[in-house]
């Protein structure tokens, strides 16, 4: 029940800002990917207990991200006026939410099967994961600039800074793509050693990790639309 306050006030005009929760939501995604990075390192070492444990932790963080996403959506009724289009904001929230979703899925796939592959491939996974994490962390920095943007009410300079970061995220995602293709080729080259099931499993992992970087790039792109279409 709402506490009775016995006031007639101007408070109702001020709605909850969706931007702070948006930044929180982005960092939940980042947390998932950081945990996934640990899980992948443990996976390459063959430490499946740790992989299981981290998988549970990622499940929890992913759920927290979902709750934040639902709160943002439920508080954006049609009467709320924002400095950006509400639809653009929701369109950008969606791929951002996929970052934690995809991290959760990769983490689950890690628990399914032990790695049986040459070192070359293990290193490939580490490199792919490292670049993906870097992309996501750059994306987190990008979302954090929203605070400054609001503070100066979208000054030209701040908009340029933000757009510059969007481009960097896109460039980094492109590098992830290159590593991704290279790694898939390596996996197929070692088909005899890994086995058909192993190839399927590892290729799926590569695809999953690449998706995380894809979603960051996608969200960054939507963020640009949101900032430019005010």
């Amino acid at each position, binding site marked *: 029940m709402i506490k009775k306050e016995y006031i007639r006030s101007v408070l109702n005009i001020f709605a909850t800002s969706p931007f702070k929760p948006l930044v929180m939501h982005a960092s939940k995604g980042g947390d998932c990917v950081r945990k996934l990075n640990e899980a992948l390192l443990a996976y390459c070492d063959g430490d499946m207990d740790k992989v299981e444990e981290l998988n549970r932790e990622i499940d929890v963080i992913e759920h927290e991200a979902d709750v934040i996403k639902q709160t943002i959506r439920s508080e954006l009724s049609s009467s709320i006026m924002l400095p950006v289009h509400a639809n653009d904001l929701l369109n950008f929230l969606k791929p951002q939410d996929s970052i934690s979703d995809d991290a959760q899925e990769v983490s689950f796939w890690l628990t399914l099967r032990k790695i049986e592959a040459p070192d070359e491939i293990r290193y490939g996974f580490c490199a792919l994961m490292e670049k993906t994490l870097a992309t996501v962390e750059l994306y987190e920095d990008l979302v954090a600039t929203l605070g400054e943007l609001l503070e100066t*009410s979208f000054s030209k300079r701040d908009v340029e800074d933000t757009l510059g970061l969007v481009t960097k995220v896109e460039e980094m995602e492109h590098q992830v793509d290159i590593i991704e293709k290279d790694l898939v080729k390596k996996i197929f080259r070692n088909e005899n050693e890994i086995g058909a099931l192993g190839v399927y499993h590892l290729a799926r992992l590569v695809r999953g990790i690449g998706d995380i970087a894809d979603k960051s790039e996608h969200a960054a792109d939507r963020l640009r639309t949101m900032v430019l279409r005010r």
Partner: protein
Amino acid sequence: MSLFDPLVLLLVAAGLYMAWNIGANDLANAMGTSVGSGALSIKQVIIIAAVFEFAGAVLFGKRVTSTIAKGIVPIDSISLLDPHLVALGMLAAILAAGFWITLATFYNLPVSTTHSIVGAVLGFGLIAVYNGIIGYNEIKWVILAKIVGSWLVSPVLGAILAYIIFSIIRYFILQKTDDPYYIEKKFVILQTLTACYIAFAHGSNDVANAVGPLYAGLHSLEMAGLSIPLWVMALGGLGMVIGLATWGYRVIETIGTRITELTPTRGFSAEFATASVVVLHSYSSLPISTTHTLVGSVIGVGLAGGLAAVDLSVIGKIIVSWVVTVPVAALTSAMVFTGLLGVGL
């Protein structure tokens, strides 16, 4: 007639209650934005509000007070017949408005004291017409139309002015700076000034809601002349300051802790716009709602891209409260007046 006549005492008490209500809520609302943006502490706000609200009421409150007292209902023609009728009618008006405001406060409705008192005074006038004391055309409908018109215009004017002020700050200052947080700090000082300005503006307009009917009653009982006595204005100012000190600080606290979006540049824009619109109306002798003007100004800042999220559904609520308040206050006032006549006071 002596000051200690029961009817006079009742009038003064009712006027004080109304003033207390205004101080506790409307003044607190106007000042809460300064606390919310971190410009001032609650203690500082109360001191500033007390000084400038009082000054606004005493120095610049007479025009609007005169409108509430004589601008709507021709009290002089009524008191020719029986001066007691005016005193009773105005007592009924304050009681009705006070009751409606208390009810609205209880249910957290955005009802304006100004709208309530105007409706209540009109209710008294209509009963006078109904009883054949004055003619229907003697009620000053043109002035009433102007007042109601100003209720529509003032929030819009607040929005436009706030939009312009914030756009100027945005274009010339915020967008040119490397460190917006430094600018916000600088605006804290300016916002202290607008806090004084808004308190003065509020005092000059809203004091009338409490002392307008009181003065009308005293005037007809020949206890006050053609110009409004200083002590009446001071009484209204004092009542509002007491309201702020005894209850309003809690309202300020509530508002201050929840309005975190309104940084000093935004707060300054909204407050400056609101205070200017209110002072303009005080000068034009028109009673308006400070709170509704402030809501308009906040929307103006939001339209200029200054706020993270503004809930426009409050506009609908305010419009409903406009439409409901005047008839309900008029009806209540008419009933109380008829009741008082029936008791034979």
